[in-house]
C-alpha cells in the first residue's frame, strides 16, 4: 500500500503583509488556514516563524499565558478545581511539599493513600479547617463560601440569637403582618411564634393535607450602631389570601409579583 503523503500547511507572507495558506499545493481559505496554523503552534507541531503578524503575535502571547496558567492551576483528577478551594488549601497547608503537586488526587499521606480520595474530601477538609481557624473562616465568609441552608433561620434561631449576651442592650422591634409595631425581646419572640402558627395553619387549611414542614427564612435588619434589631413581616398585599397563593404555586409563599407575601420572610413549605 502506498504511503499516504502528509499534507503540510504552508504559510506565505506577502510583501503587503497579507498571509496566504496552502495545503497540498492548493490555496485554502485564510480563516481555515489561520485555524490550522494556530493549532500547530499551540501543539508545538511547527517552529514559531519570525514573521508573525500582530494578531498572530497576540494569539501566541495569549496561548503561552494560558498554558502557563493551566500548568499552575490546581486540579483534581486532571480537571481544574474552583479557585476558592486552591486559595484555601494553600492556607491550610502553608508549608507542605505536596503543594507543588498540582493534581490534588496525587497528594498522598505517609502510607501512600490519597489525602483526597473523593472530591468532596477537599470540601470536608476546608469545612473542618474553617471551624478551627478563624482566619480561614473569615476568608471563606468573604469569598462567599457559606450559604445558609434554607429553613434553618426559623424561630429557634431568632430566639437563640436574641438571647445572646451581645444583644442584651439591643432594642427588638417587629413590624407584624398587620403592620403594627411590637417592641421588646420577649414580645417579639412570642409574636413570631404566633405568626408561624397562623401561616402554617392557613397553608394547611388551604391544602387540606399534612403540612410536613413550613420553613421561615427571616431577614432581620441589624443596626449595630444604634443597637436595634428590626424585623418587618408586614403583609405585602392583604387582598391576596394565602389560600390563593398556595393554590397557584408550589412550595413558596410569594405574591404574583414575585415578592414575599410577608415582607422580610421567605416562606417555603413541603407537604405529604
Amino acid at each position, binding site marked *: 500500500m502506498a504511503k499516504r503523503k502528509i499534507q503540510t500547511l504552508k504559510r506565505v507572507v506577502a510583501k503587503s503583509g497579507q498571509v496566504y495558506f496552502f495545503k497540498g499545493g492548493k490555496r485554502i481559505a485564510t480563516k481555515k488556514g489561520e485555524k490550522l496554523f494556530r493549532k500547530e503552534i499551540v501543539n508545538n507541531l511547527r517552529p514559531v516563524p519570525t514573521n508573525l503578524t500582530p494578531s498572530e503575535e497576540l494569539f501566541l502571547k495569549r496561548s503561552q499565558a494560558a498554558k502557563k496558567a493551566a500548568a499552575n492551576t490546581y486540579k483534581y483528577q486532571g480537571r481544574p478545581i474552583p479557585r476558592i478551594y486552591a486559595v484555601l488549601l494553600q492556607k491550610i497547608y502553608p508549608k507542605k511539599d505536596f503543594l507543588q503537586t498540582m493534581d490534588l488526587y496525587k497528594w498522598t499521606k505517609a502510607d501512600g493513600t490519597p489525602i483526597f480520595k473523593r472530591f468532596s474530601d477537599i470540601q470536608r477538609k476546608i469545612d473542618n479547617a474553617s471551624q478551627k481557624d478563624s482566619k480561614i473562616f473569615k476568608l471563606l465568609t468573604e469569598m462567599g463560601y457559606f450559604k445558609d441552608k434554607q429553613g434553618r433561620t426559623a424561630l429557634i434561631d431568632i*430566639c437563640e440569637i436574641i438571647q445572646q449576651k451581645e444583644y442584651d442592650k439591643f432594642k427588638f422591634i417587629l413590624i407584624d403582618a398587620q403592620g403594627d409595631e411590637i417592641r421588646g425581646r*420577649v414580645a417579639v419572640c412570642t409574636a413570631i411564634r404566633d405568626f408561624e402558627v*397562623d401561616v402554617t395553619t392557613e397553608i394547611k387549611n388551604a391544602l387540606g393535607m399534612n403540612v410536613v414542614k413550613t420553613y421561615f427564612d427571616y431577614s432581620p435588619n441589624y443596626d449595630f450602631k444604634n443597637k436595634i434589631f428590626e424585623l418587618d413581616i408586614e403583609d405585602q398585599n392583604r387582598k391576596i389570601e394565602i389560600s390563593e397563593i398556595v393554590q397557584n404555586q408550589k412550595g413558596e409563599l410569594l405574591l404574583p409579583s414575585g415578592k414575599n407575601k410577608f415582607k422580610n420572610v421567605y416562606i417555603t413549605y413541603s407537604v405529604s
Partner: protein
Amino acid sequence: MDGLSLRRTPDAIKWIQDSLESSDIDYVLKHGTYTTQIEHEMGTIKLMLNNFQNRVFCASQMVKKDCKNSELGQEIMKATHQKKNYDSNPKIESVKYDTCFNIDLSSAYAYCLFNNGLITKKTFNYLLKLPKMERLTSVGMLATSHVKYFYSGGKCVDFKPYREPTAQIFFYLIDEINYLMQDIKWMLGNDFIFYWVDGVFMKPSTPKKKIQDVENLLISLGYKYKYEKVENFSVNRIQDKVIVEMIKNDESKRYEFTTGQSGRELGKHIAKKAFQDLQN
C-alpha cells in the same frame, strides 16, 4: 384541661391562653415544629399540627438511642456543623429535554445512619419498613427544637430556646448526603444538570462510563439507588430564580429555588458573629 390532645390552630392556643389567664394560672408554653404543649399546675395540654403514628415516635427514639450509644455519634454531637449549602447548581441555565436521567438514593438518611455505624441493623430495618414521610420525620426528630415561653399573670416574662443534643447528628446527615451529591456532580462534569436533596439529574447524553463511575461510588459507600423515569424536563431561569419542571414517574413535579444571595442577611450575620466569637 389536663391530658388534652388537640389540633394545633391559632384559635385553640388563644382560647387556652385566655382561659388560663382569666383563671390566673401561670403556665409554660412549649412550642416546637410539630407540637405546642401548655404545661400548667394541673397538667399538660398538647396541640398537634400533624397526627403521627406511634411508630414514628418509636423509630425516632430508637434512632436517638443508637446515635447516643455510638462512638461516632458522641463525636458528632460535640462538633458543630456549619449548616452550609454548596448549592445544587448555581450556574444552572434554562434548558429543555424530552427525557433525562435521574439517580435517586433510596432511604438516603437511613442508609447514611447505618453506613456510618450510627444505628444498629435492628433500627435500620425498622426505619426501612416505615413509609417515606414517616421515616423522614423519625430521623428529623434528631434535630427536635422548641422554645419555652414562661407566662406569669397572663404575661410572657421569659423564653428559653432548646435544641435536642442530637441535632448535630441530623445536620451531619444532611452534610454527608450533600458531600455525596457534590462527588457525583464532580464526576458528571458537564453532564450534570442539578441535584435536589438526594436525587441527581443528568443530561440524556451522559456517557455510560460516567454513569458507571457514579454507580460504583454509591455501591462502594453502601448506598442503594434507583433510576426514575423523567420526561418533559425543563429548567427556566429568570435572573436568580430557577424553576425546574418535569414529569417524574408519570407525576408532575416542580422545584423552585434561588441561586442569589437575596434574603441571606441573617446567614451572613450569623457567619459574622461566629467569626467574632472565633476571634475571641
